[in-house]
């Protein structure tokens, strides 16, 4: 399959995100089940962000060495804007769900799953990751199908 520089770049970022954030959320879920959990995953989050940045830098250096760097043109920008629209919808939906849950939980008092700051941050982070994945997948879709 003949992939453009932009497609290779997006595909690499997508795979890095899936792998690194899968490890993050798997670890976080494991922590929640532990009895001695202190309610924070800040260290893991910082490590995850650094890992993503390092992987992205190394991957794009490899792409540049391969000689495939291309400047974005109007088609790339159009596809990117369509992808941002879809990603925004996902993120806005996620944020709205968390806010609605917090309001309902506040009005109803104790709920089955209390919305702790740890849970709120991680649910929001999950929606941010899903939004990023939507962004990448939308771009790949339009690059293949056409705009």
């Amino acid at each position, binding site marked *: 399959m003949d992939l*453009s*520089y*932009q497609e290779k770049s997006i595909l690499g970022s997508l795979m890095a995100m899936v792998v690194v954030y899968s490890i993050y959320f798997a670890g976080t879920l494991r922590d929640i089940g532990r009895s001695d959990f202190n309610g924070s995953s800040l260290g893991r989050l910082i490590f995850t962000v650094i890992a993503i940045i390092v992987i992205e830098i190394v991957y794009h250096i490899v792409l540049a060495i391969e000689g495939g760097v*291309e*400047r974005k*043109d*109007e*088609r*790339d920008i159009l596809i990117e804007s369509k992808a941002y629209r879809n990603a925004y919808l996902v993120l806005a939906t996620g944020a709205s769900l968390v806010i609605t849950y917090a309001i309902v939980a506040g009005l109803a008092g104790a709920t089955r799953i209390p919305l702790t700051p740890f849970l709120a941050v991680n649910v929001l982070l999950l929606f941010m990751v899903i939004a990023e994945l939507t962004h990448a997948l939308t771009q790949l879709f339009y*690059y293949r*199908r*056409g*705009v």
Partner: protein
Amino acid sequence: MARGQIHNTIRRLRFDHAEMTQQELAEKVGVTRQTVIAIEGDKYSPSLEVAFRIAHVFGVPLEQVFQYVTGESESAA
């Protein structure tokens, strides 16, 4: 109003201009080769500016490069 499609003759024009490659056309127009491929395959309709630049590269009027085809015009032909 019937929705039409934009077709183009870029492949033919490239052939007529000393078999210009997609990469050469892309460089002259200021877009990527992938965009030229997408335009040629009717998968992307370029902006008016890029359309004019393509026509300018081949030294022909815009309507010789791009044609707007509706269902009505196809059945009339």
